[in-house]
């Protein structure tokens, strides 16, 4: 680098980090072989922390440069002049004293570092998981869509013996206000007769109201209410007869009408879904 810089003449100041006039082998600056570098003003206020400051600061008179044809070109700047900066500002308290061995505090320092790293890693992973979950769950159904998944029905508007049909989640929902007689009949049905044995108790929360999804379990047609041989529903497509509890009694359907999840927040309302 120095030789290249010396040869390139005009460009030499730009090719070196520190600029010193050097007598080249062919072009002497001044007669003689050894040229001392220009005096570098030592800035004592500037802290001795960077390579640039070390470069100019260490030997009092700057590097002595010698270039010649026969002898070695050299920069006399001994490696012993390199002073390792004082890092006390950055050291841990246990290591500030240069007269104390660093082995004793080694365990505790490592434990501290690893504990802090470990705790940060755990917290970091948890944070990442939370952020990721929030982003991904933003793709799930929004509140208005979720609200549409439930239906609230005022039961007072359904007279006894009547079946009301509601559109719920794209399917027909039957709510039937049963009379005492009907309830008694359905509860007395023998399990052995049923293709899909289920007691009426297991299909209703409040026996007065039978709430089923109006989709025939055979091939999906909508049964007609208050029709059929069993006082319930009749599917006209293939002739499936359901009773007042929505159970299949006659016909090709294999299962009883599906009972959705519903709750009675009070006497007069039901929320299905």
């Amino acid at each position: 680098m120095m030789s290249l810089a010396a040869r390139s003449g005009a460009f030499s100041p730009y090719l070196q980090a520190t600029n010193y006039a050097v007598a080249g082998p062919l072009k002497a600056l001044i007669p003689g072989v050894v040229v001392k570098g220009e005096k570098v003003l030592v800035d004592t206020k500037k802290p001795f922390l960077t390579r640039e400051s070390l470069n100019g600061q260490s030997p009092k008179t700057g590097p002595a440069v010698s270039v010649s044809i026969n002898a070695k070109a050299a920069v006399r700047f001994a490696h012993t002049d390199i002073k390792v900066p004082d890092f006390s500002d950055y050291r841990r308290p246990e290591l500030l004293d240069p007269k104390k061995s660093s082995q004793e505090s080694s365990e505790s320092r490592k434990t501290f570092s690893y504990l802090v790293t470990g705790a940060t890693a755990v917290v970091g992973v948890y944070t990442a998981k939370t952020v990721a979950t929030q982003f991904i769950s933003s793709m799930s159904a929004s509140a208005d869509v979720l609200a549409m998944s439930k239906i609230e029905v005022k039961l007072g508007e359904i007279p006894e013996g009547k079946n009301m049909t509601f559109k719920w989640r794209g399917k027909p929902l039957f709510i039937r206000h049963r009379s005492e007689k009907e309830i008694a009949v359905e509860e007395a049905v023998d399990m052995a007769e049923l293709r899909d044995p289920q007691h009426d108790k297991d299909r209703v929360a409040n026996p007065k109201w039978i709430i089923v999804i109006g989709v025939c379990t055979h091939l999906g047609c909508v049964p007609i209410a208050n029709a059929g041989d069993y006082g319930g529903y009749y599917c006209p497509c293939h002739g499936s007869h359901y009773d007042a509890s929505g159970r299949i009694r006659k016909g090709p359907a294999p299962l009883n009408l599906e009972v959705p999840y519903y709750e009675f927040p009070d006497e007069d309302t039901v929320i299905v879904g």
Partner: protein
Amino acid sequence: ARDQTWVCSDASSSPILLSLRRGQATVTYAQSLLGAPETRLTALDNGLRIASEETGHSTCTVGLWIGCGSRYETEKNNGAGFFLEHMAFKGTKKHTQMALEQQVESMGAHLSAYTSREHTAYYMKTLAKDLPKAVELLSEVVQSNALSEADIEQQRSVVLRELEEVEGSLQDVCLDLLHATAFQGTPLGHSVLGPSQNARTLSRQDLVDFIKSHYKAPRMVLAAAGGVTHEELVGLAKQHFSGVSFEYEDDAVPVLSPCRFSGSEIRMRDDDMPLAHIAIAVEGASAASPDIVPLMVANSIIGSYDITFGGGKHLSSRLARLASEESLCHSFQAFHSSYSDTGLLGIYFVTDKHHIDDMMHWSQNAWMNLCTTVTESDVARAKNALKASLVGQLDGTTPKCDDIGRHVLNYGRRIPLAEWDARIDAVTPRMVRDVCSKYIYDKCPAVSAVGPVEQLPDYNRMRSAMYWLRF
């Protein structure tokens, strides 16, 4: 007769082939363990210790090992020990430089010295019969160094030139920077050479103060190995070294405080260099720690490698095998520098700029392997290699003398080969795993890198490779 009897053969009648004792070394391992004579240790009244091993050679190495080094220096006089080493042979109060050199040369002796972070040594290799003269010259060099101002000024430029030259030895630069960053803010971070600023400004008074505070008898060992008798050596020591002081001014005994190790890194990036020199280390065991031997075995498992090794994929160290097959590096070595209360356990490698990531990965993988899944066969092989190298290193009077000097300073006695052997035998794979886990597993390393090091992984990644999630 053409009848060949193999049972009773004497050398004169059997074929030449049989007289070569193939497969038999001249000395068995057991013999080399027990054959070395005991190292004898005495102390003078002023605390100076004398240790010697009498091997009967006709040459000997005698020297003074002093427990002082760059670790005892402050930032202001960092490099004083090194400077002093340069001044050592520039004349004493009794002999000028010329006279000193002439004395040494006429004996045909070699006078040298070295300074490290915790030890300084001045030693002479000479004929056994010249021992008295050698001890006299050494005592002068150490106690009555002339330290003339003129020589000091002249040596300044020599030291500066040496600083400049050491920049070319990138291994030293890398390992110096490793110490500087690993032990930042502490005396162990100082380089032995000292900064160039100190080389320009250290005065005679600084050097005199340094000698006065550290060259004290209780911290010195006069060690010798070769054809020397202990009694003669003790007599010479009494004669020349009784005057070494053992008291400190103002009772200011320099006490070494522990040095904090900092897991850190330093990168000296220069894309114009052809090769990158990188060292990674963790805090290791002190010289006197019981963990030293398992760690030596562990380093032996990783071993060392150079691109000139011919073993290829048949090398026994896993890392060396990978280095060879995947051309991961030009060389690597596992090292353990231990000081009186701490150490650096690491791997140093030299590689080109496209293989740094892979080499670092496999080096740390080798460490993890040591901590978790090292096997019986790895340990057995490493133990043998370690024993062989320990015995093989002591192949002359100078290594032996150096061994004696350093051991007495570190341990207070010379640890004989038989003891090393017993300790090495006691190492089990479980022990290697436990000890390595204690020093390596999930510890912050210190890394230093010189050269085109763009590919060196970020520090956090290197720190993460110091443990395995599967464990």
